[in-house]
């Protein structure tokens, strides 16, 4: 099992200045500290929809790499997204899911099927052909660069430990200034 922040740091080392990143909930708060950037897309409006927002961005801007940093509880809320993304097959979309087995932002309750669900197997069954699963940080650090450069869509499940309580100021994710900054940055390049 891996530490989420270490995984995110590994991803950040390979994220380009023009790449779009959509982190959710607890991951978002870690991510915006590690990679503060106007092309972080933080306002998803309803739980589970980050990867769907990402698909819209990927379809509309095929020149941009679009990276989703999803959660396991969030993905369970929108499993159909695996099928939809596999069918639409955007080459510029990479979908990571951080699996810690809990609804970390909602009290740390376990997700249904904790320890029995295989997100990687579900992605394969949904039609994804580039599917990865990591529980060892060293192995992930060695491969993440390649995952981020191969033609998408790609899916990778990161098995992480729960981080416990966080200070969460949701205005950092949902404030109008966040969306304006993203829109301006995307429009500029």
């Amino acid at each position, binding site marked *: 099992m891996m530490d989420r922040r270490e995984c995110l740091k590994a991803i950040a080392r390979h994220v380009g200045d023009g790449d779009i990143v959509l982190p959710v909930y607890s991951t978002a708060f870690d991510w915006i500290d590690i990679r503060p950037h106007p092309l972080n897309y933080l306002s998803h*409006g*309803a739980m589970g*929809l980050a990867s*769907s*927002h990402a*698909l*819209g961005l990927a*379809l509309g801007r095929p020149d941009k790499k679009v990276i989703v940093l999803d959660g396991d509880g969030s993905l369970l809320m929108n499993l*159909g997204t695996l099928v*939809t993304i596999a069918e639409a097959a955007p080459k510029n979309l990479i979908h990571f899911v951080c699996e810690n087995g809990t609804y970390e932002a909602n009290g740390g309750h376990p997700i249904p099927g904790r320890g029995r669900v295989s997100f990687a197997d579900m992605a394969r069954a949904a039609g994804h052909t580039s599917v990865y699963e990591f529980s060892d940080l060293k192995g992930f650090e060695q491969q993440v660069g390649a995952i981020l450069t191969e033609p998408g869509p790609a899916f990778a499940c990161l098995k992480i430990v729960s981080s416990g309580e966080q200070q969460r100021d949701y205005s950092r994710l949902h404030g109008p200034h966040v969306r304006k900054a993203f829109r301006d940055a995307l429009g500029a390049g």
Partner: protein
Amino acid sequence: MSLGEGPAAASTAAGLSGENILREIRAAGIGFVVSVPDITTSEGLLRPLAKGAGPRLIRVCKEDEGVAICAGLSYTGQRGLLLIQQTGLLDSINAIRGVAVEYSLPVCMMVGLLEKEVGVMPRQSKRYGVRIVEPILDAMGISCHNVEQESDVAKIGPAIDAAYADSKPTVILIGQRPS
């Protein structure tokens, strides 16, 4: 907030042309139609789209996915249209609330009204699942446009343009099966 109470209120069984609706959609600059099949628009709209008539069709598993896909598209300068049934609209209320309304994004939805009687405005329908749609949209502050007969098709482009100009969601209700 329904804007279709005028000529359509006197609608009879006069038909709708799917071809004309698609022409209006294309003219409005829609590049992607995101859809879960709807029986009202299945043959007249979705079938030609599936055959490649354009815009590009993106099939989704559930309607709230489509709300977010259209939201993502809206940031990119591309226009999307979510083509669904009112059952899917009702199922997606929270996504529409959070993504389209609270973030003030131009999510455009074309909604077929399952089981609506031809020539009857939605609010007057005997079907509970039909007559509640406009009051719910009113409560959410979402503009709504009734397309009941051929003369209403011309409302579609301006409704989409207004949604993008004002950065607000809009719903276009299709009241009978287009040919």
